[in-house]
């Protein structure tokens, strides 16, 4: 079998085509949003959000509702609760995140423990991109559209509040509103990503491609494009690994992201050495 056949063979199956499309959409969503997550130092909140949607997923599953709907409600409520808890500064934001993160995740585990079979929930915890249905693909597509359109429409405001919230406040631009918008978008992105890599690893898609891109360029639009390219490449690499090596798809995608980060780190180190830093 030659290289072209190796690359094409997995996609003769419909479920692999669906998985690839889902992977690309999730990659673009998380990677573009992830640039703001990294630059605004919100990696911890990204990790927390991915864990706090668990009770929403479980409650929706137990009641036979749309599990994406349950996750979206839990994610958005968590985003708003973090913003509300930390808004008056009696509780620091990282403390608020820590409380909600562990509380909601514990609630999710508790709800899972009420069900006899733990196996039903392993796909939620660790992801199963090969099992994405057409309905889920549509939901992921809608989330991608919402995130990208919002990022484009609010680009100048998000950019300004990311580096100079005082100027933003002086001109009447509410940085806290923009933060809520960003948190809600993150909640949506997390919901999309959970199907691919699961609750436990979702924050990796939000953080790692963007962190790798930030090592290679210091131009924001270029960083977003590069981050998306890295995330898409990682998603496809993860799918190939899953297909040919029969390993977990979610973990493969995340490890591919980490490998890209390592390459970006090395490229940066070589560049700096050449530049004489």
């Amino acid at each position, binding site marked *: 079998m030659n290289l072209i056949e190796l690359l094409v063979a997995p996609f003769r199956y419909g479920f692999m085509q669906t998985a690839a499309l889902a992977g690309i959409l999730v990659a673009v969503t998380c990677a573009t949003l992830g640039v703001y997550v990294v630059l605004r130092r919100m990696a911890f909140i990204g990790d927390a959000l991915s864990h706090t949607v668990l009770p929403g997923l479980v409650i929706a599953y137990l009641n036979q509702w749309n599990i994406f709907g349950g996750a979206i409600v839990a994610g958005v409520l968590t985003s708003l609760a973090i913003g509300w808890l930390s808004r*008056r500064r009696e509780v620091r934001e990282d403390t608020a995140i820590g409380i909600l993160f562990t509380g909601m995740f514990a609630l999710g585990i508790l709800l899972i423990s009420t069900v006899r079979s733990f196996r039903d929930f392993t796909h939620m915890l660790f992801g199963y991109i090969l099992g994405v249905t057409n309905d889920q693909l549509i939901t992921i597509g809608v989330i991608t559209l919402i995130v990208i359109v919002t990022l484009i429409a609010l680009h100048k405001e998000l950019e300004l509040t990311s580096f100079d919230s005082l*100027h933003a406040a*002086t*001109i*009447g*631009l*509410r940085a806290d509103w923009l933060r809520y918008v960003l948190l809600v978008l993150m909640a949506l992105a997390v919901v999309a990503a959970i199907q691919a890599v699961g609750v436990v690893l979702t924050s990796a898609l939000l953080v790692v491609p963007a962190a790798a891109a930030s090592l290679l360029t210091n131009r924001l639009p270029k960083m977003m494009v590069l981050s998306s390219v890295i995330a898409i490449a990682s998603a496809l690499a993860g799918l190939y690994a899953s297909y040919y090596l029969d390993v977990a798809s979610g973990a493969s995608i995340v490890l591919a992201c980490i490998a890209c980060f390592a390459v970006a780190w090395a490229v940066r180190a070589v560049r700096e050495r050449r530049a004489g830093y």
Partner: protein
Amino acid sequence: MILMFIPYDKATPTSHTQARSDVPALELTQVSARYPGTHQLALQEIQFCVKPATRVALVGPNGSGKSTLLKVAAGLLPLVSGTARVFGEPVGQMHARVAYLPQRGELDWKFPISLRKLVLTGRYVHLGWLRQPSRQDWALADEAIARMRLTDLAERQISELSGGQQQRALIARAIAQDADLLLLDEPLNAVDVTTREVVSQVLAELQQHGKTVLIATHDLDHLDTQFDAALYLVDGRQVGKTGC
């Protein structure tokens, strides 16, 4: 496609009305203020007035309330008591006419953005939500950059600028904004000679064009020659009176 102007703050009239000479640029009446989450007043009963088209210094030791007063004037800090007006309107309602230049440490200078884009953000208050900068906005930003003698560095990342260049970039942003009241927090602290010269010259020109400049400074040597008035602060209280 031309989008309708949607201001960031609905209370904000962004059209530039001509500054009336009889209305103070800034008027504080018995103003007390404190930072959120604290109990101690950072400013106490300040009675202060700044005439339009003047240059006024805020002087005092570290922690005396200079930065706090500028933040009150910029509408960034709520008042505990008293009233604060900018060009006759309550603070926080004249966003387009007020430019606040914080101390350099209050910005994230590592953020990946060019000097030119930083200066362009001065135009955002005139654009509001959704509208993108026009060619004219870019041209005004370039003009302001040239005025601060930064044209050669326009495409450079802000992280690569020296402290003095960063300070000039912030003043260029205030010029691009076409603000009538500039609030500068220690702009000449630890900057190079070129920056000192350019800033002094440009501030004098702005004053000639009717702009009002309020500067927090430690530099007591040039108070008589470079400023029309000065307010002395100690422990959040004023020493003496400064009226219009």
